[in-house]
């Protein structure tokens, strides 16, 4: 063999194998495209998904046949105009201006006179919602449960303006 000057101890020669040892290479996968695709898919479904609304079935109730007639003479009517002023009238009588501060005591007296008194509350559409809430609260606190709330008619607005006019 080359390099062998001769005379020295020779190394035992290995048999050359036919298979070359495999050179293992480190495998590195770049995950960036996969993450990109995942986000693209996510964005796509976020923008295009439309949830199906549950279909509501409409049920029309039969017309109510029970009617109760109330005598107008005994009806207590509270009216509130656009400016938030309160007026009270009984039956067909003329409305009289009333202070809100006097309302709780007034209702308690009415409850003592007749616990089943029927009350009608008419409020101008332009009045503040808080006024209606306050009146209903006072009625509930006075335990007067037979009341109805409605909106003020045009004729009644005129009537209130007359009641408000200085005498």
């Amino acid at each position, binding site marked *: 063999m080359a390099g062998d000057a001769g005379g020295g101890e020779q190394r035992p020669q290995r048999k050359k194998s036919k298979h070359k040892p495999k050179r293992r290479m480190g495998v590195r996968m770049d995950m960036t495209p996969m993450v990109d695709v995942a986000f693209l898919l996510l964005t796509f479904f976020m923008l295009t998904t439309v949830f199906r609304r549950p279909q*509501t079935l409409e049920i029309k109730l039969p017309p109510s046949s*029970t009617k109760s007639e109330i005598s107008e003479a005994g009806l207590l009517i509270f009216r509130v105009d656009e400016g938030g002023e309160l007026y009270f009238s009984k039956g067909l009588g003329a409305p009289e201006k009333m202070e809100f501060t006097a309302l709780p005591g007034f209702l308690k007296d009415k409850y003592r006179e007749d616990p089943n008194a029927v009350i009608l509350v008419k409020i101008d559409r332009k009045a503040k919602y808080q006024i209606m809430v306050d009146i209903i609260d006072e009625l509930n606190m006075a335990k007067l449960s037979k009341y109805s709330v409605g909106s003020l008619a045009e004729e009644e607005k005129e009537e209130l303006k007359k009641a408000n006019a200085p005498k």
Partner: protein
Amino acid sequence: MRIIVSLLLLLSLFSGCDESRETPVKGSLTVYVDEGLENVVKALADSFLATYKNAEISVQVVKAREGAVKIVNGEAEMFISTREFNDEEINAARANKLEYKKAKFCYDGVYVIGRFDAGTDTISYSSLKNFLGGRSKTYRTVIPSVNSGVYEFLKTGLLGGTDPAGAEVKATESEVLTAVKSGKNVIGFVSANVMQDSSEYTIYKIGVQDSLRNTIQYLEPHPGYYVQDLYPLTRLCVIYLTEINIGLASGFTSYLTGNLGQKFVLDNKLGPATVPVKVVR
């Protein structure tokens, strides 16, 4: 390695070729239904079969008690009842180690009917108890069989567990209709879905005390009142399933409780129980 992969591929190919496997829209099913819901369930079954041609559904009409016994004994896969199981039936199912699933179906009302020439169409709730207790000398009361859903409802809901001793018991709800039509001063109790032609009968409005206004409000049986629980003789109809896997019974149940099924329910004058409803005056 290649041989193993090839074998696995072949196996997966052939395993998908099972033609006889039951699916939610394919297979054969016997549905037991309470006589009080016969008409609506038959209509729904026909509609289902028209859509899914590979399904076979047979509807068998039974009494409420009979259907409950079939479910509890594991003899039925699906039963549509006008009432829920009572304690005795629940204990029997537990003793048989039977697991069942329950699903809401619809709201139903028990009609109080008289002949068309009854004269009045209102009756108070307390009067019903008097009629069923035999305390009325003027009217004869007729109710369906002891095993029917109506009987159980009147016994537990109206009379607090006591049997309606003053009432005459007929075998079926159809016989109750016949008895009311042919006799004067006869009051009958039937399910809402049994009453197909109401022109020959008076359907009473039942008076309920309105404690807030201290008045009596008379309400006729109507789906709008069932869903709001205003009509006093309202009951909940349920579906019982003993199916283990998801097969045709589950598929038919989904159909009954879905939008289309509930629309059928409303068209049959019953109250939908599984979809949102909007009550309009």
